[in-house]
């Protein structure tokens, strides 16, 4: 018979576990007790996911109105703010796992396009084409603003915005130098007229002021500039078409903007403290500015109030397009949601609401894609931040001219590859000390041809979404 096991010394709690571990256990017990006595409230009704915290406030009253008019708990709208990457992961996870997601989702352009990477009947959003046609809504929207939400001829989202681009510039510096920006029509004019502002202010031999916030790693600005020039990355059938003389010409010119003797750009990234500091100090004179960016500057760089103005984007060629487009959001109804008719009714309630349009404009300077809204007085008020200019009216004037954009699931991949081409082209220019755009075009074309072949091979791997063979 074995002796019963006995420890020689009575163990203390800390001989088993470190003090910190006991504290974690204690915190676990206490916080669990608090959590159990304070459970999250159940929210019956329709889930509506968004990714911009500003819209929580912008939509508040419209949702309250809807909930008041629809007292049935199943029709109440619950809005949830998610980080864009979490929203994307939930959407993609739900699409691949066939699990439920929200009833309504506000999706950003690249995210929504990724959902199109499959057979049209498998897209996780309700096809709104027939509803829009039956209710004669098509003409009510700014036509180019619909393009990012159309896949294979079918519309899968209501446009939230237009996002035309203007050029925001430091009017205090420009006007102090006696420069008249009305002389600027093209990007060449822009460099010629504003060029004298590139200056070495501290005498160290290097310029302390540049004309444009642009750098070869700025993907969104590059895309806006390419779209402005008329580039299309896909043809109507969805084939990649990046190997194009126009793209080569634009990329070659962009390289000379960021390097070489005529460099006039500087990297002052948006949404960063460092970039904001450069804008405040006047290191950069001008920035490509979609409407939402004008709102961002107003909200987050108050030090620029009264020192900036807006002008039309310089064109690539005389008589060319004086605007572009940057960003975009749509409202979609998910196919897994019950009673899509109610969700559709809510979508119209939200996006056709003048109060929501006014809230969006006042909080973020975003203009509505619903043309009937454009005559509303709030778009035509002078804005002290932009030196008294009528900001809304200026953006609205450009709205019909924003370029159309393809809604291919390969958008992101194509732009990423074009960025590689641009970086390689800059390296080539530096290596050969060649900074003439015309001289760079053959190399640009060679790099684009390689990019085209690479992209075609990668697009061809998707067995679910394959553009029809070229004729």
């Amino acid at each position, binding site marked *: 018979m074995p002796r019963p096991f006995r420890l020689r010394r009575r163990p203390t709690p800390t001989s088993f576990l470190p003090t910190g571990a006991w504290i974690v256990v204690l915190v676990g017990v206490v916080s669990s007790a608090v959590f159990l006595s304070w459970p*999250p409230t159940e929210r019956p009704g329709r889930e509506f996911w968004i990714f911009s915290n500003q819209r929580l406030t912008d939509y508040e009253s419209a949702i309250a109105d809807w909930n008041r008019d629809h007292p049935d708990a199943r029709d109440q709208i619950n809005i949830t703010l998610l980080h864009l990457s979490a929203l994307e992961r939930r959407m993609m996870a739900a699409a691949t796992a066939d699990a439920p997601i929200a009833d309504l989702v506000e999706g950003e352009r690249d995210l929504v396009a990724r959902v199109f990477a499959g057979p049209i009947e498998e897209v996780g959003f309700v096809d709104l084409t027939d509803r829009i046609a039956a209710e004669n809504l098509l003409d009510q929207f700014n036509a180019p603003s619909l393009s990012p939400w159309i896949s294979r001829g079918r519309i899968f989202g209501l446009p939230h915005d237009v996002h035309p681009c203007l050029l925001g510039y430091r009017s205090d510096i420009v006007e102090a130098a006696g420069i008249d920006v009305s002389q600027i029509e093209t990007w060449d004019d822009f460099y010629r007229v504003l060029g004298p502002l590139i200056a070495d202010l501290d005498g160290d031999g290097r310029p302390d002021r540049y004309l444009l916030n642009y750098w070869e790693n700025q993907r969104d600005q590059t895309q806006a500039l390419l779209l402005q020039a008329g580039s299309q990355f896909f043809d109507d059938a969805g084939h990649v078409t990046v190997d194009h003389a126009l793209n080569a010409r634009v990329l070659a010119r962009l390289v000379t903007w960021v390097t070489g003797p005529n460099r006039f750009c500087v990297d002052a990234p948006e949404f960063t403290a460092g970039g904001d500091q450069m804008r405040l100090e006047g290191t950069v004179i001008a920035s490509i500015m979609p409407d939402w960016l004008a709102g961002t500057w107003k909200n987050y760089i*108050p030090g620029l109030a009264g020192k900036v103005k807006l002008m039309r984007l310089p064109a690539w060629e005389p008589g060319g397009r004086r605007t572009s487009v940057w960003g975009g959001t749509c409202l979609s109804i998910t196919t897994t949601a019950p009673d899509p008719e109610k969700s559709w009714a809510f979508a119209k309630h939200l996006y056709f609401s003048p109060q929501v349009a006014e809230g969006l404009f006042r909080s973020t300077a975003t203009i509505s894609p619903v043309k009937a809204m454009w005559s509303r007085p709030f778009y035509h008020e002078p804005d002290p931040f932009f030196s008294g200019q009528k900001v809304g009216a200026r953006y609205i004037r450009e709205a019909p001219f924003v370029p159309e954009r393809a809604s291919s699931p390969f958008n992101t991949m194509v732009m990423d590859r074009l960025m590689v081409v641009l970086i390689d082209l800059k390296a080539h220019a530096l290596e050969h000390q060649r900074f003439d755009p015309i001289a760079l075009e053959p190399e640009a074309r060679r790099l684009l041809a390689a990019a085209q072949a690479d992209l075609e091979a990668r697009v061809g791997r998707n067995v679910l979404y394959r553009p029809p063979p070229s004729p």
Partner: protein
Amino acid sequence: MTPRRAALIPVYVALIFFAVITLIPFIWMITSALKTPEDYFTSFFLPRGEGWGGIAWERLTADNFRRLFREFPIGRAMVNSCMLASVTSTLATFICAMGGYGLAKFSFRGRTWLTSLVLGALIIPGPLLIAPSYQLLWQLGLLNSYAGLILPAIAPAFGVFLFRQAMLNAVPPELLEAARIDGAGEFRIFFTIVIPLVRPMIGAFLLITFLGAWNNFIGPQIALQSPEAFPLSVAINNLRGLHGTEYGLIMSGTLVSIAPVMCLFLLLQRDFISGLTSGAVKG
């Protein structure tokens, strides 16, 4: 002063220098949390003014902290984070310790195969599992519940393998056999003999998993549907605008969110360091 002490002076000077460099971002964060949006860009640390030392002391404000607790559900998020991180790390530590002990000290059919399976699981990238995990949680009815977040995290392959290695080195089989001969049951052996022997690893792993759960950002947004259930990491991020940031508010939120973790690190640092370095020197 002895020559030996004098020789230490440059070492201490260098250490103080690097300590100050290390602390600069932290000090910057504290001063930024106390500044108004207007002052944020005007000075690096404290706003310049007429006060003592050329600093505008009167412009320092606790408004960011006040707003944090009044306008945003930070209190609720703090409770959620404490619960999520402490329960997840406690359960994960014990379950991984048990799993590691089983693999290290028990002979059974399929042990090698099971160890290889655990090792193989280490190389599966997390994002690959998002869609199947989401579907599984949905089918098990665990979406929008903390169980859906805690259960998948309580037996990470990394932890099981870490404890297996610790048990192999730190727990002599003779000790286990002696305890068995003396009549101790397996659970008693585990809790009274094995756990104290791997105590440093317990501290280290607990801290690692606590930090992982505390900082988990995407996971809660995928598994939890209700904003009230979101932990601090998500709540702090929601303070950021889509395109702009109120830096003072973010800094105050960040300070609030790192304070508990710093306290825990101070409590566990000895175990954390000895846990990480155990076996590093061949004795």
